[in-house]
């Protein structure tokens, strides 16, 4: 079930009504409702994958208790859990890629290999819910949290429907206490939830989905596009993927707020980053912090010498790329970011830009502007690999930017020529909120009627300029 579908609207109304009006007396019943709703939500894609989700939930629940109850076999159970989670990911997501790559490697050296491929569909959101499970057992192993005794509570943690298919990747210490706590309706929280949803739908339906066909056609026909279009294509893709993914996150966070939950923040206006380190503190925060906590730091982080730190960074970004998909393009995307990041680490400049952005003035300083621009160019360059179907297309695309004529003489008839204006307004609003959340923008309008007028205006913009083709979210494939 997609957030941007009419089914979700009905689903949300039904679940919300039952949750607050019928089952509001008992927390356990509310949690049961959330679990059933989450399974229905997930089952809409493919009910068969529900079995996998249930199995993964049951196993991690069991390992969580087992790790806590034994000191002797603690490590064994942890490893069993890791093998189970990564095994599921490996079979469904990575097996075909590694088998093909290994066969190609053998073929290169003259050995004929014909890999038997599984060719199975990738269950939606598998990378997200396995990472939920992994973080849970890691935290129990490290005595950061106690295992959850109540299976329903744990299952809701793993598969709460707003975050099930594309995150944010929640942590047990943050989310489980909320599940166990009695929830009271909060007017302000509900309003904030709807504000987030409104903004998320605007990003997804108006911007991301409108850019999608343009980006698709430019990448598909990149061999015949002039350089200017190729540059436009990658800029548009950078905006598309941001609006698509952060739009999803906003809707997820907003929906969660309607039910009384707070999810982790996943984006903090990443294209205003002043360096790559800051970009990774602003982009897909729940994933980058996951890798930091469960991979980088356990590997030793930067505390065991420069050489080890460099290797650790390479490993983290390599896995970050691989997490997105079993393709060389994602691996190169990850490694490119590692290359961008390493100079900052080596020069100890990776924490230079942790403070607010232009806190005392409306515009950034010249230095900040140049830094933002340079970071954005680096990010865009890496996006080419991320978006390309394969490495050949990525290199062809980059080559085309520099070798094709810059502009075609035949008339450029950009479809949806109003889009740059909408994108401009969008980034203006984001800039206003650069050191806050999007609610800051809405509550800037002090009078309630002006605020309502703004809501209506955005709704009208969504209806009139939106693309209602029920396009799926990009991050569902990961």
């Amino acid at each position, binding site marked *: 079930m997609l957030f941007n579908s009419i089914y979700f609207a009905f689903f949300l109304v039904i679940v919300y009504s039952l949750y607050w009006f019928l089952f509001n007396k008992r927390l356990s019943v509310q949690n049961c409702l959330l679990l059933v709703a989450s399974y229905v939500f997930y089952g809409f894609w493919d009910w068969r994958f529900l079995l996998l989700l249930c199995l993964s939930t049951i196993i991690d629940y069991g390992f969580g208790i087992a790790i806590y109850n034994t000191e002797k076999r603690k490590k064994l159970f942890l490893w069993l859990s890791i093998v189970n989670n990564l095994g599921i990911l490996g079979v469904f997501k990575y097996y075909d890629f590694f088998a093909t790559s290994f066969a190609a490697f053998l073929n290169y050296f003259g050995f004929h290999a014909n890999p038997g491929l599984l060719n199975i569909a990738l269950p939606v959101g598998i990378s997200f819910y396995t990472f939920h499970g992994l973080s849970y057992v890691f935290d129990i192993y490290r005595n950061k949290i106690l295992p959850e005794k109540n299976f329903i509570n744990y299952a809701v943690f793993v598969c709460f429907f707003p975050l099930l298919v594309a995150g944010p990747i929640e942590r047990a210490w943050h989310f489980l206490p909320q599940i166990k706590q009695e929830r009271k309706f909060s007017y302000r929280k*509900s*309003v904030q939830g709807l504000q987030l949803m409104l903004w998320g739908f605007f990003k997804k339906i108006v911007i991301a989905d409108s850019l999608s066909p343009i980006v698709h056609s430019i990448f598909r026909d990149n061999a015949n596009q002039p350089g200017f279009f190729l540059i436009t294509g990658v800029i548009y893709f950078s905006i598309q993927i941001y609006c698509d993914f952060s739009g999803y996150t906003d809707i997820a966070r907003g929906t969660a707020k309607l039910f009384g939950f707070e999810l982790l923040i996943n984006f903090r206006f990443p294209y205003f980053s002043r360096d790559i380190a800051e970009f990774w503190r602003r982009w897909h925060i729940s994933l980058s912090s996951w890798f930091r906590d469960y991979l980088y730091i356990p590997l030793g982080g930067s505390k065991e010498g420069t050489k080890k730190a460099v290797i650790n960074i390479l490993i983290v970004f390599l896995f970050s790329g691989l997490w997105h998909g079993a393709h060389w393009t994602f691996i190169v995307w990850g490694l490119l970011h590692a290359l961008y990041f390493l100079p900052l680490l080596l020069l100890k400049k990776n924490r230079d830009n942790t403070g607010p952005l232009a806190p005392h003035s409306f515009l950034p300083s010249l230095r900040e502007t140049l830094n933002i621009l340079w970071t954005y160019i680096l990010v865009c360059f890496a996006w080419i690999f991320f978006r390309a179907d394969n490495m050949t297309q990525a290199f062809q695309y980059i080559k085309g930017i520099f070798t094709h004529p810059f502009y075609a003489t035949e008339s450029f008839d950009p479809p949806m020529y109003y889009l740059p204006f909408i994108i401009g307004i969008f980034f203006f609003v984001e800039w206003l909120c650069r050191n806050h959340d999007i609610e800051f923008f809405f509550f800037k309008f002090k009078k309630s009627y002006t605020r309502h007028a703004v809501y209506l205006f955005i709704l009208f913009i969504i209806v*009139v*300029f939106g693309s209602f083709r029920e396009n799926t979210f990009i991050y569902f494939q990961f």
Partner: protein
Amino acid sequence: MKRFIYKVVAFPIALIVFFYLYAFLGDGYSDEYYLRFTSPKQSAMILGISRAAQGIQPAIIDSVLSTVYPGIDMYNFAFSLGLSAYGPVYYRAIQQKLKEDAGKGVFILEVTPWSICAAPANPNDSSAFEEEGRVLDQLHFFNMNPNIDYLFNCYSSPYINLVINKLDEHPFSLLHNDGWFEIKAPMDSLAIANRTEGMIYLYQNDFYPRFEFSSKRLEYLEATIALLQQHGDVYLVRLPAIAKILQMEKQKMPQFDIIINTVAKKYNVPYYSFIDSCNSFSYVDGAHLEKKSGCRVSTDIANLIKGSLSN
């Protein structure tokens, strides 16, 4: 909580009202079909595929036939090969659009080999026809203004295009209120040659190898004639195209004219074919008549109808 619920309900209501009013702005520039589903039921129609949609101009027919059919108000309800080849979907659409108690109507049915051919492995499997699941199949309401059904289920562009296309100084097309789909493409010889080349390629590489005669479609052509005869006079028309395309049609269905003549005799309806005079017309792309030629063909059809009535 009550306050919250009231507000939450108020916004969708405001939105629905806004959208309903906004939809009235849709017109012939919105897209190539919308207007056809906002008009009321019709008692005189031009039916067929895109050749008829672009080539037969209702206003011309009306002007010639008004003396023999007083108050005639022709409506072009032809679409395209992918949507309105004769079959169950188009038949249902015609039924929905047909004004049944309006006295004697006039119905011009354009026929080509393609409109009684189908592409599936079994060309008589109507559940696999191209039009299944597309606009005419999806639509429940054919005569509603504004047509929310169409806008929700079939309109694939952002709704801003309902109004923004009319701002285009050189629009590619315009759907008139009488259903005529006017192509406003550049008509210099180079542009025509390019489009014709593309159209021939399409016929050669897509239509010709894929499509086969479908007796199911022929059945539906007959059913359509039988249906419309209950409400007025029916005329069968074959429109011209460039010789190369007609040659392909001849190769695909050498018996086409015999089949149609047999149907015409069976139902006692006239059949007018313009393929012998194909060289005297000009085309937008080889398959579709250019505006002035369309005007001429429309006049000729009307005069033939008028002549048949006076005989």
